[in-house]
């Protein structure tokens, strides 16, 4: 399905508004939309809301053989998916250009910056290492997917706990979460990307463009930084010419924004930790506000609690006996045995229990269905004799 096309009057209006330093939702030029970070019940699941843009990241781990060039380092794998529910413009099937671009940016931001200590992911050098997989799903697109995805990915990585591993000589034991507490990944720093949209050949810039602003922009500059003011990755797309001062100015703005966002992530992680410790309910379902407009109301139904065993026995006594069924004959073919303790077989083994043989004496055969019914009948006979 195609997305709604942008009309000429919208484009003109947006550009005019940007010239007057006005944005559609009333933000200032350097303002971010409201960021909300929530974590799911599992470790490593994180939802990020950037205004109306919504993104989910999930981290999982697996033991695999390491790469041959790096036998004592773990593997990090990133995958960003543009889901169809995010926008009617995202189609299923082959990867679109935007999807490839976002994937590459996410990889460069997180992998090349070496924010995770991959050597600590090694279990047995050359044989077994942890592969950490980060899956980011876009749930709603209202502009600036890259920033939301990077915040979600790094928050999920900080939130994730991998199973504890014990090595004794040659033996490697992976403990389940019930046996030993899972341990967090060792993260050196948190790279976060900040996007700048440029208009009118680089004259005007906006931070955190929303979807309509993204449609009319000329180019995009993405700077990934951490709070120690180290630039992890810079990418410019759209083919605009930028001056050196503009790039320097953008990096200064980015450092301010990144420190704010890092604080927000840390606060969210702390809240989640205290909630889990206090035993309170945490997770995605709890973070959604309950807005009820209808309530399910059911009248009380009475449950009958009278004892029915007497009526049952009277019914059974007065009822007719079930018709006699003749069991199909079982012919023991040499080499065939019935499965089950005490049933006959032709293997010539010693029988410990002689009495079962008497019951089986009449019946013999190789039909599996007949064998099953035979077993059930045996059961009934045993139960009745016990009673």
């Amino acid at each position, binding site marked *: 399905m195609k997305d709604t096309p942008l*009309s000429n009057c919208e484009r003109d209006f947006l550009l005019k508004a940007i010239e007057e330093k006005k944005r559609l939702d009333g933000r200032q030029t350097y303002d971010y939309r409201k960021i909300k970070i929530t974590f799911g019940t599992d470790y490593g699941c994180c939802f990020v809301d950037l205004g109306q843009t919504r993104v989910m990241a999930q981290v999982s781990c697996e033991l695999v053989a390491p790469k041959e060039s790096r036998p004592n380092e773990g593997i990090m794998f990133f995958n960003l998916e543009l889901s169809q529910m995010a926008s009617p413009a995202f189609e299923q099937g082959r990867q679109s250009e935007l999807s490839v671009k976002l994937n590459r940016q996410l990889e460069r931001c997180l992998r090349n910056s070496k924010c995770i200590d991959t050597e600590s992911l090694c279990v047995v050098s050359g044989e077994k290492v942890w592969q950490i997989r980060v899956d980011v799903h876009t749930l709603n697109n209202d502009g600036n997917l890259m920033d939301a995805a990077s915040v979600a990915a790094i928050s999920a990585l900080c939130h994730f706990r991998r199973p504890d591993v014990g090595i004794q000589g040659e033996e490697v034991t992976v403990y389940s979460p019930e046996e030993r507490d899972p341990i967090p990944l060792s993260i050196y720093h948190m790279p976060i990307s900040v996007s700048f949209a440029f208009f009118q050949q680089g004259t005007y810039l906006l931070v955190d463009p929303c979807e309509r602003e993204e449609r009319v922009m000329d180019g995009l500059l993405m700077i990934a930084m951490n709070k120690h003011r180290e630039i992890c990755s810079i990418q410019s797309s759209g083919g605009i010419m930028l001056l050196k001062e503009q790039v320097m100015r953008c990096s200064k703005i980015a450092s301010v924004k990144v420190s704010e966002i890092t604080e927000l992530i840390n606060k969210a992680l702390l809240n989640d930790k205290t909630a889990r410790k206090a035993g309170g309910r945490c997770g995605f379902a709890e973070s959604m506000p309950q807005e009820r407009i209808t309530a399910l109301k059911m009248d009380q139904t009475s449950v009958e609690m009278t004892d029915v065993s007497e009526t049952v026995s009277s019914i059974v006594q007065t009822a007719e006996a079930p018709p006699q069924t003749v069991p199909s004959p079982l012919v023991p073919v040499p080499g065939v045995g019935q499965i089950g303790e005490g049933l006959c077989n032709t293997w010539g083994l010693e029988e410990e229990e002689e009495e079962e043989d008497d019951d089986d004496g009449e019946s013999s055969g190789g039909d599996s269905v007949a064998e099953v019914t035979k077993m059930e009948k045996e059961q009934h006979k045993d139960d009745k004799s016990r009673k």
Partner: protein
Amino acid sequence: MMRRTRRRKKEEVEDIKCACQNLILRSDRGRCGCSSRFSITSCSAARCSMSMFSILKERVGQILLPGDEFCCGPQDTLPLTDSGRPERLVAGPGLRRSGDRLLVSRSGVLRHKEPNKFWIESQQRRYVPAKGETVIGIVTAKSGDVFKVDYGGSEQASLSYLAFEGATKRNRPNVQVGDLVFAQFVVANKDMEPELVCIDGSGRANGMGVFGAAGLLIKLSLGLVRRLLAPHSDLRADLEQLFPCELVVGMNGRIWVRAASVQQTLILANLLQSCDTMTAPQRQQLFRRIQLGAL
């Protein structure tokens, strides 16, 4: 309780009152409106005690959900002679007749208009084209004699270049890709491609055509748009108090706004988008704050 009539000839009209007191019979082996067959001697109208009209009237203003039904059969078919008042119901959008029952097919509030129209008013954002409705469309392509227009539905509608006022084969209208058009549907059903025109029956534009020099296009829910277009809408009255502005309202949920300055246009757009779910007092409070210049 039944009153028996005297023996009558076939041509005479009976005047028997069924046990459901509201309805009066027309023929002797007819059906009472409570859908129970009976003869002159008896009426097994135990099931019904009121007509459907009054049941519906009672529930006007309540929220109904799909699956709710009103069973108490509809009024008799046309009487042999025309005396008496037949109670007819006109079931509007959201209500559907199925045999003897009236089924609700949409969730919303039941509304009533005198004398006998009932319908369900619901909120939705996805527009389904209907003949005669005026919408705002965006021209996406020009192919030969026809423009392709996107109106927010599942396919694009076609708009012929001759469907403008004063357009001839030589005198083509000045429409570019990306322009906004205000048009109405002449063909809109689920089996054919929808068609739009920018003229009315007599060939005049009547407000339709290309527009939109300097305003902003926003998308709202269909319920809000219908409220804006209602005859004595208090939402419109509140808007009039604010500041002078121009609005073009399309039934597909798209609204084009223009005010004196960019700031005022933006304020208006944001106001409309947020007052969808507000009650009237909340909305008036918000508007008052804007008038005082707080925002």
